[in-house]
């Protein structure tokens, strides 16, 4: 296994806008609906709907390829091979959240991708990454955008509370990748 820290000079934390178009995102949302969400409601940790195993191999492969391309150390370098470890889809409606202590801590180097599949921007619905308690990567609600974050044992993540004043849900596909 190649260590991502050896592949990339700096720890990656970036957002690729328009990684998926509105029509394709709508198709994915429809497939997720058909596959069926499960409610997670141990509210000391989180409150959300989840598809634990979305059947989206082509999309996951395309996102992994996009991440690999964006993380090339130089424009002429070959993209690093990245394999999908797992994927899940989460849907947060008004009043939902995922707390940091519900997050898995990754003590090996991994990439986490978060694809915003929402139909419309949900104001204030963000994904926050912290290192040593300090917020260093804020993923704002932006339908179609892809966040790419390199994770190690010092990084925690949470999905911010979605206000009850919002009408829409935010839908995110979350992938873990390993080199």
């Amino acid at each position, binding site marked *: 296994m190649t260590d991502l820290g050896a592949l990339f000079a700096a720890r990656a934390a970036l957002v690729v806008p328009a990684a998926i178009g509105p029509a394709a995102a709508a198709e994915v949302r429809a497939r997720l609906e058909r596959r069926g969400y499960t409610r997670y*409601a*141990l*509210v*000391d940790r989180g409150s959300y709907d989840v598809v634990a195993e979305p059947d989206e191999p082509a999309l996951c492969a395309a996102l992994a390829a996009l991440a690999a391309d964006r993380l090339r150390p130089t424009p002429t370098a070959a993209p690093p091979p990245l394999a999908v470890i797992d994927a899940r889809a989460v849907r947060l409606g008004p*009043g939902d*959240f995922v*707390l*940091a202590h519900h997050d898995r801590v990754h003590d090996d180097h991994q990439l986490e991708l978060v694809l915003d599949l929402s139909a419309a921007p949900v104001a*204030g619905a963000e994904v*926050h990454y912290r290192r040593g308690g300090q917020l260093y990567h804020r993923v704002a609600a932006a339908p179609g955008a892809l966040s790419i974050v390199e994770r190690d044992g010092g990084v925690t993540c*949470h999905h*911010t*509370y979605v*206000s*009850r*004043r919002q009408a829409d849900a935010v839908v995110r596909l979350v992938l873990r990748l390993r080199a």
Partner: protein
Amino acid sequence: MLRLGAAWDDEPALAAAWRAARPFPHLVIDGALAEAAVAELLAVVDEEPVWPYEADLFAFEATAPAPTTAELRALVAAWSAALTPRLGRITGAAIGRADLRAYAYRPGHYLLPHTDHQAGLDRVLAFAYYLPSPEPPRGGELELYRCEVAADELVVTEPAAMIAPAPNRLVVFAVGAASLHQVREVEDGLRLSLAGWFYP
């Protein structure tokens, strides 16, 4: 000395209510303070600066963890002196002192579910006292959960009780591994409160 309301007069009834409360021991005392005391308290809180606080669990404005004015320090002492003996008798808890901060929840503010229970902090009772608001809030209820614990983890959490932030209402509850509660999002208006804990 903080003047309490007549609601405290029947301590046996309050003790019975405490024991009967579900999902965990708690009390809701309306008219907790005498009207004159409410006005004095508001004047003290009004002089204390508040700051925004935000994390994954909460978003609100609050005074600093320790009072910055002599008046608020005096209020904390008076609060502790007035309530500690009574709540000790009513709840049977061995308590000796209290602390508190003032909180302002504006639209969009919340405090997500948590228990207040942390090893080493010795929190015995938690409380929230709701102040009169110039803009009474919509939302901002205190919601209590029924929980089941296994291997030191919550394995079931269900909403069980909802307490509105009515002016001059005091809510007290036992702090433990299963005392899960939240402040629901304020959707409109302003929710003003004092909150803190009683310690041994």
